[in-house]
């Protein structure tokens, strides 16, 4: 951890807190029916996105999943535009057309969340091709879940990226559950990282509850990709604290598993305690930071509440033009 500056550690803690608090708030507003449709909270997995995105430069790309808010925030997405999108407002990232699963930000190199499990995997091949053709040393992180690792696209994408030595970092967020299907029962070999061997690319596991471990693992893969060596596969061992969505009580999990994870592998709690112990930050400073974040989320909610609905006429006009 020597080379990770104090400022960077504080930034990591801040981003993790941002995602945790933002997600908690979205669940609240989902329960109040301000947000509807599907919502897939990232609570518990924050260290994966934050550790990974901290290893990127601004111009690098990411491509995300249905559980994508954390990735977007880690890459620097705007709270206002995110919340407004979740509220279905015209000022949202997608003008109210996309909702939770389709947030994208071209300026941040955020190529979009995805409603299809594994949908982003083939697209990462294309972004990788363009990074390679461009020769500017850009890379792309492709986030996907343990469910997607069992989909055929996983093979096509990793094979083609490996064949062409594309600068793609494949991060499998293994949170153990694809909706209700447990990875222990669905991943043959029970080792997603080991599948890298078949493609002749580096593959390793990283503790997804430890932001520093994630950062170091991803930094290594980013460096490898920037040097033109091709893709890597990182299996982030993480855990979804909540159910698949806010109304899922997650009864398919063994008793005590979630409680144990929350108690022992809470990336926010553990990292905060560590930074206090290491005297990187004080409890008071953390409280200040948290208050600041809450204020920004309050502002985002206010912005979303006060934003206009999309205009039906404008929408229909667009439909007519695109016949």
């Amino acid at each position, binding site marked *: 951890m020597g080379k990770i500056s104090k400022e960077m550690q504080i930034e990591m803690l801040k981003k993790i807190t941002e995602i945790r608090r933002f997600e908690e708030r979205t669940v609240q507003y989902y329960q109040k029916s301000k947000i509807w449709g599907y919502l897939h909270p990232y609570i518990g997995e924050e260290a994966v996105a934050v550790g990974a995105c901290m290893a990127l430069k601004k111009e690098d*790309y990411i*491509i995300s999943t249905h559980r994508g808010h954390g990735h977007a925030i880690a890459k620097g997405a705007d709270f206002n535009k995110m919340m407004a999108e979740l509220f279905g407002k015209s000022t*949202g*990232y*997608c*003008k*109210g*057309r*996309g909702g939770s699963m*389709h*947030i*994208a*930000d*071209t300026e941040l190199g955020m*190529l*979009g969340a*995805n*409603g*299809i499990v594994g*949908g982003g*995997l*083939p*697209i*990462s*091949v*294309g*972004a*990788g*091709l*363009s*990074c*390679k*053709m*461009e020769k500017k040393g850009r890379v*792309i992180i492709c986030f996907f879940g343990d469910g997607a690792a069992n989909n*055929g*696209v996983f093979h*096509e*994408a990793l*094979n*083609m990226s490996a*064949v*062409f030595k594309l600068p793609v970092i494949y991060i499998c967020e293994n949170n153990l559950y694809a909706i209700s299907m447990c990875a222990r029962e669905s991943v043959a070999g029970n080792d997603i990282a080991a599948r890298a061997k078949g493609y002749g690319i580096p593959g390793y596991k990283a503790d997804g509850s430890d932001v520093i471990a994630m950062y170091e693992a991803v930094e290594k893969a980013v460096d490898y990709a920037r040097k033109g060596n091709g893709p890597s596969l990182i299996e982030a061992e993480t855990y979804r604290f909540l159910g698949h969505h806010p109304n899922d009580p997650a009864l398919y999990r063994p008793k005590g598993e979630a409680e144990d994870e929350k108690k022992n592998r809470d990336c926010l709690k553990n990292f905060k305690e560590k930074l206090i112990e290491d005297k990187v930050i004080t409890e008071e400073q953390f409280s200040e930071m948290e208050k600041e974040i809450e204020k920004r989320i309050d502002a985002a909610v206010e912005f979303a509440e006060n934003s206009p609905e999309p205009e039906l006429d404008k929408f229909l006009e667009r*439909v007519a033009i*695109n*016949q």
Partner: protein
Amino acid sequence: MREIEYREAIKEACIEEMDRNPKVFLLGEDIGVYGGAFRAYKGLLEKYGPERVVNTPISEQAILGGAIGAALTGYRPVAEIMFVDFCTLAMDQIVNQAAKINFMTGDALHVPMVLRTQGGSGTGIAAQHSQSLESWFYHIPGLKVVMPATPYDVKGLLKTAIRDNDPVIFIEHKTIYLNKGPVPEEEYTIPFGVADIKREGSDVTIFAYSAMLLKALAAAEELAREGISCEVIDPRTLVPLDTDALINSVKKTNKLIVVSEAVERGSVASDILAIVNDKAFDFLDAPVKRVCGLNSAIPYNSKLEKACVPTKENIMQAVKGML
């Protein structure tokens, strides 16, 4: 004017667009030294090298995802899927991704890609290599569908497709690659949504596209000798569709026959009927007639294969039955 083959016209379009814009590149199966299944790309690997003529593994999802990802990050890929039948392997990338990304992201992202493929029967390669699946793509908002029948049209329309900012499904026909036709030396493009009256006439309008256009023209030629005057209209692009040209022709002849090789049930031809019913019912002197493929898979045996798709004689018969 000089005459060149349909496939040469495709190659010329690619060369002109690749020379015009360094962001244009080709990808697909067997498009390297092999030059593509129909040799449309012969010599292009030598001319542009493997970075712009990307010879891929047999991975339809990764090919189209490759195109989408590159398109999202500043390139203009032309992805080849060897047979339209193989698009079935990658329908998620076409339907859920390419067609919807611009819409879902509130117009933040564009997918300027071309999917070049070919379909149709007539070469004895049976049910999995002979389909006409244009109605699948026609049905999906967000996709443009182009089906050129002549060397002139294929060149001008492919150039337009490559310059388009949204995904274009470009469907050629496997039996017409060696057909020769006039193509000017000078550069030209053909706008989408502009039908071409391939033959003027006054008794009946025949609406036909792709290889069926050629059969319709042959039928019209023979009918002319019998004193029957057919107007043959080629939409060239099914989406966008030049409805005005179709309606104007119907107003002139008051009779319409729609010819298509595709299975009749749920076809583009059926939709043309509905459009004419809506917009020109009062001008019709007879019910619109469809001359389409049988509701069957394509068989291997040549006699049976021919029986599944419209012939010149079928078209002539339909015309005579209407007078």
